[in-house]
Structures are given as C-alpha cells and as structure tokens.
C-alpha cells in the first residue's frame, strides 16, 4: 500500500519535475476571481529559530524559506522555472560569462526604489571578508570574487559586478556557469540597501523592523523562538498575483508536537513524523517529495593500519552487502529512495533531468550478497587477508535517533552478509565534522544537499585537494573531467564528462551512495498552489491561495 503510493508519488514527481503542491493549481489561475470575504491566512511550523535573516549571512534552510518570500533576487525561481524578478530582462554574452540585467521599477518596503546599486552593494558585501559570510563561496564564480574574499586583492572595484546605472547591472563570471541564473535566486544574492545596512550597523536584520523587504511579503513580526508573521507586501511589483494576506510561521522544535498542531487544525501543512507515515498514508493524506539530500558512506582511504579502507573491492563489497530498500523500509518507514547511483535523480540535465538523459544503476536496491562476497574475496586476495572479521572498521555518525537506527541496521547487515565487524561511534554533529575535517575516522555516514540545480554540486566535492574532500581519494582522470566540465561552453560535452566522472566515482571512488532522502508531508485541502522544492525554499507559497 505504502510502496504503491510512493511509486505513484514518484511517478508524479518525475512527470511534473519538482511540483508537488496541494491541489497543484497555479495561483495565477485564481487571479481575477471575485474577492473573498476576510483576509486569507495560512500557518505552518518550522522546527528551529531562524538564526539570521541577513541575506549575506544567512545559511540555514529556514532563512532560505522565509527569505524566498520576503526578498526577491534578480530572478525568481518558481516551481523549477526561472522567471523575471527584480530584473525585467537580461542578456548573456556569447562566451556566457557576462550577464547584463535590466531592472524593473520596484520598491523597498519603505517606498524607496530598488536599484542596481543595491545588488552591487549586496554582492560586494557578500564577498567582503569583514562581513564574515559563511556562504561567500557562492560568489566565487564572479571575477575576482574569491580573490577579494580571501584577501588576495583588497580593492572591491576589481570584483566583476558593476551597476552601470540605476537600472542596469553587469556581472562578469570567471568561467561559463550553466546554472548561474538559478543561483541568483539564492539568498546570498538578494539585494540590501547600503544606507539602511549602515544605519542599522550591528543590529541589521536582528528584528522585523531592522530589515527592508522587496519580496511578495514583509516580515511583520518576529517573536524570536516563537513565531514569525508575514503580511502581503503592498509595495510588491506583482502584488496582484499574491493571494495570501497573512502567514504565521510557528517555531516548534518537537516533530510530534508540530504534527499534533496540524492534526488539531492549528496549521495548514506539516511533515509527517516517520512513525506515523504508514497510518497517514493509509488515510490517503500523505504526500512525498525529495528534499535534495543524499546520504552515503564515505571511506577514509588514508587510514593507517587499515589498508582495506582504501581497497576498491572492499568498498564495493560493503556497497553491495547493504539492503537499501530494507533499510528505508525499517528506518525511514518507506520514505526515501534507494540510491543506486551518486547523482541525485532530480538534478537538471540538458533538456530533461540528468538521470533521464544518463540512466545508470550500479548498486542494486536490495543487497546482492553474491556480488558482495565476490568483491570481498577479491579484496582479501589483494590484501592477503584470510579472515574477513579481521577487516574491522569504525562507522562514524551523528547522535540522532535515526542515525543510530541506520548504523545498527548497516552493522547487522555487514556482519550477517560478509562477516565484517563494524563498530559504531556516535558523536554530536560538530564533532563529526571536526573528525571528518581532520580525517580522523574510518568510514563516515555523511550527507550532502545541493547548492544549485546541477550535478556539479555533488561531483566537484571529490576532486584532489577539494575543500570538502575528506577522503584522501585522488584520481587524476576524475580531476580532469571535472576541470573540463567547469570550463567548457559546450554543455553537451560537459554533461558527458559529468556522467563519466559519476561512473568513475561510484565504481572506483570512496563513496557508497545509500539513499536519496524524501520527506513525507500532509497538507490541508483548502490550500492551493503550494509548491515544494528540493533546492532553495522547501515550501513556496508565493502564489498559493486558500479556499
């Protein structure tokens, strides 16, 4: 039953790209209808306080969610489609490195116009080392962006971003970046106004009245740790397309509490706690979407005293010994998709998704014990080891309940199927990252979420000396493929190279994909036109409506 509905949900996802709204009606269709009585209100919960809404300092998923609705970048991505935002039109040069944007007449919430200077200031602010922005790397595509941020140059005017006049903005990139337009929808590139930022100083963005808004909504109230209240922005250029008048976002840490609020009708949509998915699904109220995260096992190939960790056949043996489908069924209650390849299937290819254009399945959904044993035999021969139980390793993971269950499942599978003894080390999140950075681990259960809609966001992690490559793995061919993909203007050749790189990584690299995460959620029927995304704002209610 559950499997079937997931299959249907999956089919829907594949057909409709990322769309998975309640009702799936676009908001614009509602436009022009008669005005209903009373303000239209919706409410939902987020699980933690938004640490910062300062566009250039914000990093977390809730800031991205809220920011998507209260700010607007040069473009607006809605339902996977790039639409004009603050920029009405734009031109891209033939070498695909110079972008010229022409801004529309739009206003900040205090009535002053949004100008190209606000964007220039925002991007320079993002890259300014004194802003100490964690996501400054998003600006490294721009000429001299990285150099300025890392202090190699000190003159901000050398950065490749310039307001030619109030209405025209020019951005120069180092290399052609296929996904640059959609990247401009990312929170780090939202505009801020210099005079306001400087007036607020350290207090900028600390409260609702210490921010300026140019998006469809304004932040009316921000009761820290409690709730955020958004209201329709009367100054928004496209305000006629916006149907919702008021949005209340409650901050509720506990997933079960949040779910009960939804069940009591206090909120309009909610994630379903794993334990309840089966029940809610049987009532026909469950929906599913990919949230973009992928989880995999990552081997430390430079581990002293444990040469098997660097052995390709050993890695493959572990990969084939794990029953991904059973893991998902038991730990995630069927929500998520077994990862038989590395690149997230939803990511954009040339025309369709990358996965459709380059179908590939290396690992099986269920455990393939025979294949696993075969690989293990090869590994043992190569290493000169006769007893598989000698090839122990420690599995590093987070301290959450789910992480523990996953670890216990994998532990049992490896012992049962291969006779490999694996111990588990659970540590707090920061400590896990620290151990990974120092390469002080054997195997780690790690995850990655996409920064932009392109396979590169997953693949460029593993180049030699890459900032996130904590495996010690180094492959010259792989490095060359990625380097080629990053510089070529031939997007077909680029996609081919990325696919070659993916195969190389899955078949010879230190990464064993386990699953692509899905989230199960439920939504009140009265809400129409709500969109879920696997990248950017998890929920997009810009054009949503209520009955």
């Amino acid at each position, binding site marked *: 039953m559950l499997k079937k509905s997931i299959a249907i949900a999956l089919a829907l996802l594949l057909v409709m790209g990322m769309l998975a709204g309640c009702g799936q009606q676009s908001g614009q269709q509602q436009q022009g209808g008669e005005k209903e009585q009373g303000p239209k209100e919706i409410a939902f919960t987020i699980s933690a306080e938004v640490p910062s809404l300062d566009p250039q300092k914000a990093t977390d998923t809730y800031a991205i969610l809220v920011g998507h609705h209260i700010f607007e970048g040069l473009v607006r991505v809605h339902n996977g489609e790039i639409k004009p935002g603050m920029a009405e039109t734009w031109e891209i040069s033939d070498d695909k490195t110079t972008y010229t944007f022409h801004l529309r007449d739009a206003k900040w919430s205090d009535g002053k116009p949004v100008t190209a200077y606000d964007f220039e200031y925002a991007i320079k602010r993002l890259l300014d080392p004194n802003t100490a922005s964690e996501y400054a790397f998003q600006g490294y595509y721009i000429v001299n962006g990285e150099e300025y941020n890392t202090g190699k140059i000190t003159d901000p005017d050398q950065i490749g971003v310039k307001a030619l006049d109030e209405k025209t903005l020019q951005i120069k990139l180092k290399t052609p970046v296929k996904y640059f337009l959609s990247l401009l929808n990312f929170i780090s590139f939202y505009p801020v106004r210099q005079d306001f930022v400087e007036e607020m100083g350290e207090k900028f963005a600390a409260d609702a009245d210490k921010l300026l808004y140019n998006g469809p909504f304004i932040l009316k109230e921000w009761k820290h740790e409690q709730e955020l209240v958004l209201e329709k922005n009367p100054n928004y250029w496209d305000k006629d397309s916006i149907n919702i008048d008021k949005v209340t976002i409650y901050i509720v840490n506990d997933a079960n509490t949040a779910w009960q609020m939804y069940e009591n009708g206090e909120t309009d949509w909610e994630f379903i706690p794993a*334990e309840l998915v089966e*029940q809610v699904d049987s009532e026909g109220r469950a929906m599913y979407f990919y949230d973009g995260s992928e989880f995999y096992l990552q081997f430390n190939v430079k581990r002293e005293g444990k040469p098997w960790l660097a052995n390709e056949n050993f890695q493959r043996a572990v990969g084939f010994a794990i029953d991904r489908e*059973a893991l998902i069924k*038991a730990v995630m209650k069927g929500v998520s998709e077994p990862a038989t390849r590395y690149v997230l299937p939803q990511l954009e290819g040339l025309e369709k998704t990358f996965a459709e254009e380059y179908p590939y399945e290396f690992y099986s959904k269920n455990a393939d014990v025979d294949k696993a044993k075969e690989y293990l035999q090869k590994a043992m021969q190569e290493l000169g080891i006769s007893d598989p139980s000698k090839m122990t390793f420690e599995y590093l993971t987070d301290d959450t309940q789910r992480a523990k269950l996953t670890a216990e499942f994998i532990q049992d599978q490896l012992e*049962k199927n291969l006779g490999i003894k694996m111990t*588990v*080390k659970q540590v707090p999140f920061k400590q896990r990252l620290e151990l990974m950075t120092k390469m002080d681990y054997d195997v780690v259960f790690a995850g990655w979420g996409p920064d932009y809609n392109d396979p590169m966001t997953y693949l460029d992690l593993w180049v030699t000396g890459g900032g996130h490559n904590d495996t010690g793995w180094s492959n010259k061919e792989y490095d060359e493929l990625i380097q080629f993909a990053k510089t070529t203007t031939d997007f077909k050749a680029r996609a081919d190279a990325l696919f070659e790189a993916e195969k190389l990584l899955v078949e010879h690299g230190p990464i064993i994909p386990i699953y692509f995460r899905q989230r199960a959620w439920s939504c009140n029927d009265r809400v129409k036109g709500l969109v879920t995304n696997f990248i950017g704002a998890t929920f997009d209610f810009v054009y949503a409506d209520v009955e």
Partner: protein
Amino acid sequence: MQVSNSEITQEMFEHVGKNVSQMEAIARPSLTYWQDAWRRLKQNKVAMLGLIIIILYTILALVGPYMTPYDYRTTNTDEIDQPPSAKHWFGTDTLGRDLWARTWMGARVSLAIGFLSAVLNAFIGVIIGGISGYFGGKVDMIIMRAIDILYAIPYMIIVILMMVVLGQGIMPLVVAMIAVGWLGMARLVRGQILQLKEQEFVLAAKVLGASHSRIIFKHLIPNALGVILVNLTMSVPSAIFTEAFLSFIGLGVVPPQSSWGQLAYYGIQSFRVRPYQLFIPAFFISTTMLSLNLLGDGLRDALDPRLRS
C-alpha cells in the same frame, strides 16, 4: 487442683533455687542495629515488594535475553513493528529486533548505570561531605562553593568531554554521572555531620584521643548511615533518568546496545500507533523507580532509631 478459695498452703509453693543461667538471660533476642533494621524492613510489606521487584528485574536482566531464541542485535525487516505475541513476547522494534531481548539487555545497561553511579556517588559524596562538615570553617566554605560551581557547569559539556576523552559507552557515562552526581550526597552528609559533631559521643571519642579520620569514619558516618542509604536508593532512579535524558538529546550508549531510556525515547515517537513500544520500557522505568522509592522509604523508617519498638 481443687482447693478451697481462702486457703493458701505451703504446698502451693516450691523453692526453685538460683538459676544462674537464666538470671542473666535477655528475654528479647539480642539484635544488632542492622538485624533490627532488617527485621523491621521485613515487616514493611510495601518496602519488601519494592526489594523483590528490584531483585526480580536484576535476575531477568541476567537471564532474560537468553529466554528467547532471538538476539537483541539481529534485525529482520520482515518482522518490523510486530505487536507482542507468543513469538515475540514484547513485540519487535522498527528494525524487527525482538523487544524482550532488547528490554533485558537494556535493563543491564540501565541498572548497571543506576547502581554503579549511585554507589560511587555515595562513596565520593560521603568522603567529601564528611570532611566538609567535620572540619567546618574555611574548608567547608571552599568545598561548598566548589559544589555550587560544579552544579552550575552545564552538564552536557561534561558528558561530551568525557566521551571525547573516554569514548562512547557505559563507563564514560558512569564517569560523567559521577562527575556531578556526588554533589547532592556531599551536601546531605555535610548537613548531618554538622549536627552530629556537636553530640557528646564525639566529644567522648575526642577525649579518648581518637584521630580525625577515626572520628569521621567510625563515629560520625555510621550515625548518618540511615540518611545516606535512603539517598542512595533514591539516586539510582535519578541516574537511570539522567541516562534517559541523555538518550533524549542523543548522547546515550553505543549501538547496538539499548537501554530503557533509549527504548522509551524511541517509544515516545511511535506510541500513537504502537503504544506497546512506549509502555513496556516506561513500565519498567517507572516500576523500578517506584520500587526503589518504596524501598528507600521503608529503609528510612527501619533505620530510624526513634521508631524502634
């Protein structure tokens, strides 16, 4: 013997002579303090029930996992989330593991953590509290302020640091619990000693030339033992609770081990659809607490000399 009512004759009496052996005999059996306490504890049915339950759980923790053919670690995805049945007495968990086996393996962890940390806490607390109370003055002030400080250091920091240094597992947990667990006991013992040290028997011991350590450990502590024991039984539940709380924030025992706290924490998330996954571990946590509290109450009554009859 039929005799007329007013007549008392000599025949009615018999000379028995001195019976030396019976003269010095003590009519009531001679009982030490402990024997007496044990006698009175035995009369306290509620406290005995508590004791029996604890003993029962301890035995089950030792043999329980072997009473079923299922291993506490073995997952089985064909049998996930089964309700209690003849096959799986307590049902199975989300990975299809037998919950009877996991409950009693968890009991080992919870009870071990509970008793071990309680005993070690008491040991440290008694020594430090005894010294603080007996010497008083500056020593007392410094120790008491040190306790204030330790009390205010966020507990999680200590637990995480212990795990960094010692790794994950039962021992680091116990050490982390001891690091701050002795504070309450030390305070309590200090209070008792402050009262006791003014009493005559201490003066007598001093006059007889007893050393400080002899006075503390041979005279003062034994007199405070009742209170100490009671507190000890109460601190077992609090250690089990602390482990449960640490599971709640993700700092528990190492997989695939379980503990009652872990089981209950998982059960909380599923109790709407599978109440047994919460109620079984919660039942054992609660009845252990209950038993230890009842036993503690009973011990206090039994050890109180004023209530001796």
